[in-house]
């Protein structure tokens, strides 16, 4: 992503969402500089799980990690069960970036990465790659949907 004069390269890890891979997750977020926690706006349960992930990341990931919350499947908003306001309020409380996205229509997908890039501290090795972890939730339907 080109941002002002700096080029930031994302290195994205998409982990398996199944519960049994949960114990391996620390391996992925341990050194990460950013994380996107994705839930499904048509699925209340996935929002609850996303909250759990946020808690885990706050507790175990690097303290400087940039976290974003993405409510996916914005294209089927008519089936929504998680209200925008609810999620937005939660994000503000926890100092998360928040956007509703759609992998299907790519709505906000680039934007959320841009937003993350802006928030990343410009390190001493300016322009060098940073790590991002994309924790796909089990309810996510398209594989690696947010990273295209």
């Amino acid at each position, binding site marked *: 992503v080109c941002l002002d004069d700096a080029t930031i*390269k994302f*290195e994205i*890890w998409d982990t*398996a*969402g*199944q*519960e*049994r*891979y949960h*114990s*391996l997750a*620390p*391996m*992925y977020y*341990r*050194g990460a500089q950013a994380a996107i926690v994705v839930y499904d706006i048509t699925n209340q349960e996935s929002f609850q799980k996303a909250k759990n992930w946020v808690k885990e990341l706050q507790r175990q990931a690097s303290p400087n990690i940039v976290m974003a919350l993405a409510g996916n499947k914005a294209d089927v908003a008519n089936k929504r069960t998680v209200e925008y306001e609810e999620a937005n309020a939660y994000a503000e409380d926890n100092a998360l970036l928040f956007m509703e996205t759609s992998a299907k229509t790519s709505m906000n997908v680039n934007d959320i990465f841009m937003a993350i890039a802006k928030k990343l501290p410009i390190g001493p*090795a300016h322009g*060098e*790659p*940073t*790590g991002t972890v994309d924790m796909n939730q*089990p*309810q*996510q*339907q*398209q*594989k690696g949907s947010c990273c295209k």
Partner: protein
Amino acid sequence: MSATSTISPPARELKTTSICGYLHRVEVRSIGLVTRRRYWFALCDTTPYLYWYKESDDVKCIGRVSLSGAAFTYDPREKGRFEIHSNNEVIVLESASDKQRNEWMKALQSTRKRSWKTAKSKSDSNLDISSLTGRNSSAVFEDASSSPSPVPPPRSPKPKKRTAVPPEVDAEIQNVENVVVESEDVIEVPTETEETDEKTQKENDRSTTEWYLNPNGQLNERSLQMPKSIESPESVLKRFADHSIEAPIRAIRRNLSSWKSSGSRQNTVDEPVLSSRKGTVSSEDLTPEEKVIELSDKVSSLEEVVESLRAALLLSQRSNEALKKLEEMGENKEEMREYLLEKERQVTELHLSNSTNARRVQDLEDQNLKLEDTINDLQQSVEAFRESLRTKEELILRMCEEENREDVLTSGVVSEKSVNLSADANGLVSDVEVPEGILVDVTSLDFEEATRRVLDEENVKDIGELQDLVEGYRTQNQFLNAEIVELHNIIQSLETREKSLIRQNFDLEACYYQLKSRYLMVLNHFKSPTKPGKIMEPGVLKELLEESARTPRESQQNLTDQLGFYKKDAMGMSDDLLDTATFYMKKAEDIVEATKLEQSEEYMKWLQSWDSFLVNNTVSSKIAIMSSPDLKTLIRTGVPPAYRGRVWKSIVTHWVKDKQAELGNGYYQSMLKKASVKKQDGSYDAAIKQIDLDLSRTLPTNKNFDEPDSANIEKLRNVLYAFRYHNSHVGYCQGLNRLAAIALLYLDEQDAFWFLIACVEHLQPEGYYTSSLIGAVADQKVLRDLVAEKLPKLAAHLRSLEVDLSLFALCWFLTCFVDVLPHSIYLTIFDAFLYEGNKVLFRFALALLKICEPQVLQCKTIGTVHQCLSKAQEHITDFKSLAQVAFNELNPFPQKTIETKRQLYVAQLKDTGHCM
């Protein structure tokens, strides 16, 4: 490396005939030494080769012979022995009995038939016309992959110069013919060979396809271990016309009647049945001399019968040769003339031998007369002998009278005197003059009878043998006739194929020149862009590029390969002409490379060794593959895509056969049923839910999986559902979807299910896919240790940058490199994995790292290392170099070390509650 499929899937499903067993191969070595070796022979009609092995369960063959253009023959006199003539090579085999031989011959024929039929259908299907351009003439491409590598190119037998026929043998045969002519039988056998010759010449000029009219049968010298002869082309014609054995039977009949009329002097003409001779002979009341003559006549006539059968056999063989000949003769008039000259020479020979035989007959008649004289003499001497007997009797009578008289006179010395008298009488008897030679025949009548009996018995035995032989020849003749018909069919189909190929070739050439001229035009255009009147029509260039994209290999499906994987280079092209040019150049190089590879000797050998293994595996009807070092080596070279389904199935069966036996036949269906029942209950099942989610994420680069309603998605769902209920301990683990999908590329649903079971429960160690993934996690630690041991520099570098290898390597192990490496490579890794198990994953993981090592060592930050490793597949160009590292350069690679380490780490993880 595109697959050359020699076995089309439907063919695999057809019931195949196969035969195997130990036979002896008889070889004549250069110094005339005959060796006779016992090998295991296997024939399976999925491949047109006969293979032989040292032992029945061998992987590597000793040798093989192509049957696709071979001719088979045998000599009924040699028990169980038969010959395969292929490419001017003769293979002599010996089976235990004639019955076995017949079975083999039948199997050989059916295999040959199938092979040329598939070849035919293949060539037919190749006639699909794919037009190269809209405006151009249609060009026919011969699909490159259709030149079936295991099938040899059509034979081109070299014509052999006819070897001179031994004159005696020739004469013998002529003798037979003479007899035929002399017995003024009704059936015509014209001997005007010149006329026939003319006819044949005409026929030959008319068409070369009428192979049977070729008058010049050329004999493959080695093929004949019996007398050779020439037969009149007339009978050749006849025999080919009705494809029956009538002609030889007619000849036999004539022979019979002729010897009967001359030998027995009875006019029982046309007694057709051979066996009736015996009866006729023994019932006749003849003198011994006549008997002898007649018997010898009979024998000679039988010999003639045999000869005529030989001639028939020979004819068949000659026609075989003629067939071969014709195959390559083509339109060569020059050669044709040579044949005719040869034929003429033969005719002269025939004439010569004819006259010789006439003389012979004369001689024989003279002999006959002489013999009759002798008989008369003999009869006279018999008369004389009887005369002498009568005198003797009179003498004895007289002596008896004297004795009686003396008895009356002196009864005291009776005994003494009588002794003397009898001595006297004996002396008298021996004094009687009898013709020499009959003297010994004191009991001549008895002796005569005994002799007759002995002779009869001998003859009966002899006749029995001869009849067997005749029967043998008859079956052989039938066989050879069938053989001729079939070879004829093959030749014809080959000819049509050749013609169509020539036509295709012309079309291609025309197309080539057309394209060339257009490219030249384009080049000219670029050379002088300012020159007026040379402005190209718009779109011409684009059209040309599109054309060139349509190579013969891809004329059918541009976007996917044979397994349904999308091709990377089918992406949109940039507008930059230079980029496009580079792209096409690379593509052209790839195609040339692939073609070269497929035609390389190594590739052929590789296919051959697989064919050899599979044939033996199939014929011995072993469902499961046996473990052997040879097989291990073979599998490490990769399984040819065409055989992969079969081989995978065998290996899977090898692993799960005990389970299959235990769980019964309908196990898969019962698991499916269970799944559907549970689903209807509506009970929530996380695993089932996850499976449904993952279906559309599996193999997204394959057209059989990329859409929710793609062909294989439903099958994949079934397999995963069934497995979930089969193994409740594992249930469903992400990653298994990929394994099952790979299986479904080659196997059907049920086999894919067992494939999954083999992978999870047999090939991977315990706990790989269970809820804690403990086995997989432990193996990551094992891998780390192995990297430290085998690639210490890399290990140190990774440690210094704090790179966790598991980020990459975990999925290498869980999915066996699916979606990590290009599919052509991971499929080959799967071959070895299926056979050897989890250990090969370590080998390949280390090999991959070793190949990447130089690049990784240059990386200075964690990010670049990550980048480098996540693009590992870019460093792997082909399987061969990877396998070289994996199986050779990394040795020694003891299973035991891995085992010990794994156990250690599993225990450790269990203690610590297992967290990375």
